[in-house]
């Protein structure tokens, strides 16, 4: 049995609305597990029912084999990091971090040592005596992190801890969170709506949508082998291919077929421009006219009108020469591995017949 397991969890608000609709997840010891999904899909609701701040309508939660739902929240021994930091405004940085140790009957000396260690880990050791009010968001969140970690909880929960920070700090702090988590080796559930963050930080990702689980897997599985159309569009972007003779011709050329396919799609980064217009041996070629060129520094997006519809092609490391003018004709190479097929329910199906 897994370390933390949530079984068939539902949470109902009001008469009919189900914020959670039959969720089951299992988290292993020391694992960094991420809940990823759009705003309103139930991530916070799931996290808070694990923390005990709201109870499930039905379902089971066990931690280390014991039923968690009967334990009052303050006895669950679960550390939590909040989106709005939730630092205690009237306590110094040191006292904020020490707060959870006092009811745990840790000796004064041990408190000092453990708080100092935790503050060092989040690089706040120089600020122990300051009040948090005047500190930056990044520093306040570091307090929150140290405070949750120092009690050495059985589980660490983080609800979008970085979403109130600016982009640069977000990347910096997520690396730190990742490193610290690996060091202390506490099983962690991390909530985010940012797919890049989820890919960068997680051992496994659980993609949620409207109170249900779409897919659970490693970052590579989620991005590289999405099992539903929702996952494929939420984690990364998709070009949907218009049905018709042109699409059939292309699929034929690539030796792909799927009887139940409702839609076909391909990721922009799986498309290449052909420099000479010469077809390569193992791919299909689509030609079309450039309708937009967007330069983004590291990459550029080229929007092309083709026979299978409008396609966005992602060009890596675009140099000066890569710039295309609107109206220019280009040829696009499609590899056999690129197209993905989805059935009428949005489930991914095999593209090999």
């Amino acid at each position: 049995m897994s370390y933390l397991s949530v079984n068939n969890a539902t949470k109902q608000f009001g008469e009919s609305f189900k914020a959670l609709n039959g969720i089951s997840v299992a988290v292993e010891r020391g694992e960094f597990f991420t809940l990823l999904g759009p705003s309103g899909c139930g991530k916070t609701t799931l996290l808070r029912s694990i923390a005990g701040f709201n109870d499930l309508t039905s379902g089971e939660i066990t931690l280390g084999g014991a039923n968690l739902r009967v334990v009052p929240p303050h006895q669950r021994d679960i550390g939590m990091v909040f989106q709005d930091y939730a630092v205690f405004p009237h306590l110094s940085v040191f006292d904020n971090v020490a707060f959870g140790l006092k009811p745990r009957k840790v000796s004064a000396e041990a408190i000092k040592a453990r708080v100092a260690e935790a503050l060092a880990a989040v690089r706040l050791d120089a600020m122990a005596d300051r009040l948090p009010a005047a500190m930056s968001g990044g520093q306040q969140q570091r307090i929150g992190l140290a405070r949750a970690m120092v009690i050495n909880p059985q589980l660490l929960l983080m609800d979008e801890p970085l979403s109130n920070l600016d982009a640069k700090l977000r990347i910096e702090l997520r690396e730190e969170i990742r490193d610290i988590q690996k060091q202390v080796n506490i099983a962690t559930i991390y909530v985010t709506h940012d797919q890049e963050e989820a890919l960068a930080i997680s051992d496994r990702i659980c993609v949620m949508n409207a109170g249900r689980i779409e897919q659970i897997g490693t970052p590579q599985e989620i991005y590289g082998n999405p099992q539903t159309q929702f996952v494929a569009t939420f984690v990364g972007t998709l070009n949907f291919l218009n049905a018709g003779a042109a699409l059939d011709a292309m699929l034929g050329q690539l030796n792909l077929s799927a009887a139940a396919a409702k839609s076909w799609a391909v990721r922009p980064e799986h498309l290449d421009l052909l420099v000479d217009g010469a077809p390569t041996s193992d791919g299909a070629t689509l030609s079309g006219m450039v309708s937009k060129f967007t330069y983004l520094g590291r990459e550029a997006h080229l929007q092309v009108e083709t026979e299978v519809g409008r396609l966005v092609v992602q060009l890596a490391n675009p140099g000066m020469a890569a710039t295309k003018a609107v109206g220019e004709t280009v040829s696009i190479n499609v590899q056999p591995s690129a197209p993905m097929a989805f059935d009428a329910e949005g489930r991914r199906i095999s593209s090999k017949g």
Partner: protein
Amino acid sequence: MKGPGDRFDGWTSVAVALTGGYLLLVIWPLVMVLINSFAGGGEFSLAGFEKFFSSRLYYGTLTNSILVTVCVTVLALVVAFPLAYFMTMFRIGGSRSIQMLILASMMSPPFIGAYSWILLLGNNGMITKFIEDTLGFKPPSIYGFAGIVLVLTLQLVPLIFTYLMGAWRTIDVSLLEASESMGITGWRRAVQVISPLLWPTVLAGSLLVFVRAFADFGTPMLIGQGFRTVPVLIYSSFVGEVSIDKSFAAAVSVIVIAVTLAVFLLQRYLVSRRTFSMTALRSIEPRRLPGWRGVAVHIYVYGFLTLALAPLVVVVFSSFRKTLYGQLVDGFSLDSYVDSQRDILRYVGNTFGIGITALIILVVIAVLVAYLTVRRKGALSGTLDTMTMVPYVVPGLVIGIALVTAFSQGPFMLTGTFAIMVIALAIRRLPYSVRSTTALMYQLNPSIEEAATSLGASKFRTLVRIIIPALAPGILSGAILSWVTIITELSTTLFLYNTSTQTLSLGIYAEVIRGQLGTAAALSTVLLVLTMLSLILLMKLPGGQKELRV
């Protein structure tokens, strides 16, 4: 077995206990008044109401009261609006001291104002005598309608003024600049742009002025003479100047509550039709107003300040004058203090003992009710929140009557005790305290509590170690304001005290009624000093200036 999501916990017990206590100590006594008003000689009767509406002597007090209250409310607004406008828009010399002094004049007990205007303009008043001696004619009488309106207006202008100043801080400069760019400036802008934005505040402030003026007992009692208002009628029929008629007093109380409630609901309705909230990114910066207009503005502000402070100065001055048979005569001495030093010590002791006990109870209840209404929204906490507002529309005198009626017999014999004084004062102030604490509680981030819980803190530890300390600065400033209103309260405790529980304000009232003007002035000075010290303490608190709402 109860799951953790089950909401029955310690807080539910607190809600039940508070509701029970409140029903017993506030609602039940008021219901007793209501029952008494409909009961004559043990059975249902409308005799009390019939009597009230049968004679001009009685219903005239209601028209008197309404006349006074409407005049005071309108006048206070008319005086306060320019005052707040000038203080916000223009640089006035000594602006911070002015605000502090205006606040001080608001916080001084209203009956001291009445009493000192008598010292100035009464039959034997300083100005009256001066005019008689030098000009040889008698100035118009201060007693009656004019005196009441003068005293109450001066007393209550500061109240609306502080409300307006608070609201002005939320107006963003860009709104003014925008109207300026459209060619609307000066008074046109004040009327067309600023007034509508201040409308909810004006309504809220006016309601408070109305409630205060309508319920005020000390001022008309001292300065009204033949001009009687409803509270005076209630008082005299309850203590029985002619004959004791408790069911009549109860009927009049019910009428007063009905009028106040109607005004309260009207204000609610008017405000609810236009609610909006604003926060200013850039508040208005006062600018220098040159030339004669600058002088005029200064004259207006300082003129008001002089009128508002005159009573306080007069009282302090009078306390050092010689007295003969209670009357002030020429020459100075400390006799007023020395002769009544034992009384002063007793009054001060009682004021502190009763006041601080009431304050502690008040703060604790306010924190608990605020927590329940903000964090435990539900039927019970909603009821509790509404119930705590009840004393807002009940004049202090009526609260006193209700407590006397309920606790002078039967299982709870409390009249004349320390406890009943404490209960009365706490009840009187509770609506204000609960409101301000609730506002504080709304500003507290709920995840702070969850953080404490996740770190292993029980509900009690979270309350004591996190919620209360995080709100402490606001709670403390609110407590000081409550303290000032508790020590200056008169009408609520008027029926409840005896010599061992007489406080300073009750002592002043008794001395004035007995004609001991010197002693009254000395006691008033002591009370003013206490009030000022409390306000200075408030100003010294971090963020204290922001909390100057009553």
